[in-house]
């Protein structure tokens, strides 16, 4: 009896540590600091999902723990004999189903928002190579590779993502953007970065030996700085 109490306490503490780590993980992701409208929306959706599913998580783990604690074999105490209850089963089918319908609301709104590329101020072409990125600014005739992407702050940037060899994926976590670069296809995405700074990302689709080294750097500058920079680039600097 005593030993099993100990194991119970072990289960309880393990679950607590697990939940704590999960909460810490969630908190860090929140701290991750979204810098585009889409990334903000994704964070909001994430928290909606945490609240809606968190109740089920606590209920399931809690009931499990209570059952293990309360219903240990004791001499002279017979086990209960119930083994079905249609009403209960209907309830625990219907409520999660309803929760999923509710959760699909904000999901689809956010999905529609991120899917719809708005009228853009600037179009860049992002092309994956083993193992570097090529960037093109078709409106300015500027093409370069293996350097940071430079974009103006606050402007809507449309990105056409493709690849010349294997599948890559252009991923900047703080933008809430991840788009596969497929050879033979062009994928469209967009971002509007709210503040200046340097943002890091990394290729997110296994693309060969040096996949782990295929970094992404985006410099977000003021529109004026961007104009100066692109003029210089046009001159071939």
């Amino acid at each position, binding site marked *: 009896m005593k030993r099993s109490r100990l194991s119970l306490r072990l289960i309880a503490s393990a679950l607590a540590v697990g939940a704590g780590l999960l909460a810490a993980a969630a908190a860090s992701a929140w701290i991750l600091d979204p810098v585009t409208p889409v990334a903000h929306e994704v964070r909001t959706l994430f928290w909606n999902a945490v609240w809606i599913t968190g109740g089920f998580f606590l209920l399931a783990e809690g009931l499990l723990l209570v059952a293990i604690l309360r219903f240990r074999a004791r001499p002279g105490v017979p086990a209960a004999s119930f083994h079905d209850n249609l009403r209960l089963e209907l309830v625990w089918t219907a409520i999660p189903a309803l929760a999923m319908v509710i959760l699909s609301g904000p999901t689809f709104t956010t999905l529609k928002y*991120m899917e719809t590329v708005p009228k853009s101020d600037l179009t860049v072409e992002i092309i994956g190579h083993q193992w570097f990125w090529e960037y093109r600014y078709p409106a300015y005739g500027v093409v370069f590779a293996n350097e940071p992407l430079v974009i103006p702050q606050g402007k809507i940037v449309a990105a056409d993502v493709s690849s010349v060899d294997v599948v890559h994926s252009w991923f900047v976590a703080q933008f809430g953007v991840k788009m596969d670069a497929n*050879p033979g296809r062009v994928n469209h995405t967009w971002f509007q970065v709210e503040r200046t700074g340097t943002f890091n990302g990394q290729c997110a689709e296994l693309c060969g030996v040096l996949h782990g080294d295929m970094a992404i750097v985006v410099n977000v500058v003021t529109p004026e700085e961007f104009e100066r920079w692109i003029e210089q680039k046009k001159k071939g600097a």
Partner: protein
Amino acid sequence: MEAGSLAGGHHGAGAPASGVKPGGGLLKWLFTTDHKLIGVMYMWLGFFFFAIGGIFALLLRTQLFAPGLQVLAPQVYNQLMSLHGTFMIFFFTIPLLSGLGNYIVPIQIGARDMAFPRLNAVSFWLLIPSGLMMLASMFVQGGTAAGGWTQYPPLSSVQYSPGPGVDLWILGLHLAGLSTILGAINFVVTVTNLRAPGMTMWKIPMFCWAVFITQCIILVATPVLAGALTMLLTDRLFGTSFFVPAAGGDPVLWQHLFWFYSHPAVYIMVLPGMGAISQILPVFSSKRLFGYKGLVFSTAGIGLIGFLVWGHHMFATGIDPRLRFFFSFASMVIAVPTGVKIWSWIATIWGGSIRLRTPMLYALGFIALFVIGGITGVWLALVPFDVQVHDTYFVVAHLHYVLFGGSLMAIFAAIYYWFPKISGRMYHEGLGKVHFWLTFIGMNITFMPMHWLGMVGMPRRIYTYQPQYTVGNQVATVGAYMLGVAMTIFVLNMLFSLWKGRRAPVDPWEHIDVNRTLEWTVSSPPPAENFATIPIVR
């Protein structure tokens, strides 16, 4: 119900004489068509590859202990990472569950053997050349496949992965697929036709239901993988261009075909374990399974809807937006039948008389961990969140909560539960519990931090990483070593118990009558052909 009556008289005489041939030793194993011996060989093979895949995982975690380490060269890292996934899925989990099903299902339904004993032997023996090809692929020029277990073209094409390693990988997997398909035919026919008289549809034990539904999934899904592998192979060797964009092919087609198989494969790997859990929980609660029919329907429901959700692996691929809505919702719907299972299991132990023996600890640990994998699964169904964490360590965490916390914990529950029946000996209970606690805690230490790593942007499948990810990776590596210790204890316990364990009685778990399936009515291990006279189920 019809099928139940079909099972009766003629099957006892109709089943080919199988079982132990004259002569013992190696020949007995080589030429056997006995489902029990074949089942045991499946399990040995599975655990062999589990050991290799596990050692690979420890090497990967060692390389990732700090950024910039050079334990493994980048290409070697990619190769071991690819084979870790391939081995754990196709050469451990799926064969091991086939072995368990092979051993247990015929006895539980009151049959003398599988419906096609020779085909059964063929299914097993196909895995030997298949596994040898996989192992050989590591030693040919250029090494084995390095494109992950997913092998997306064009990376896996001859242009970007020349060398025979990938061809061996494809052929090895092809043979494993063929083995699985043949096995599936055998299981479906066996459960349909060979049930003992009186075992109507709603008397089939839950494990047999789960295996039956799983094998139906295999019959639909695995041929699609076989087709895709054939296309990849002819692209590589004979100049076809199914996946070559320059010649009008499309690499995205591979992703569709691959995931059309590989999402249901998740259920192929987890449903039999859930079936075992549904039998173990009642036994160690001395109570009847709650909501038997609900569990059968939810298993079938997961199997069906499982075919409609493959697109959620491709939300960042750039598939049609309308499809994303569909796949997103369908994936969320899977949570409903999964929830039915979780609630039914809790209701099963509720009010019971719980004995925390090792199989029960694993069954309860399974529920605790699978709930986490299920919840993160719902999050991953939400396209915008999925796009954020797709191909990051968040997915690695999620899939290990499902496949380690789910499949593997269930496999251990089943192994401990049936070990006395299969070996005729008891395992060491104390070591079993140590194994459980080290596994349960080590598992969480390894995979919980990966949620966080993924959410802050660490991609998966990278041989080194940015310094800001160091802490999470070090915690994970420590957890992985703990798992290494746990598995060593497991192996020692099993080997020692096979050699010196106490003799197991017919029913070491003291089943109450409603829970005592037929394998607990015959000796441990069961005699050749299982039953002197075919039992009648009431």
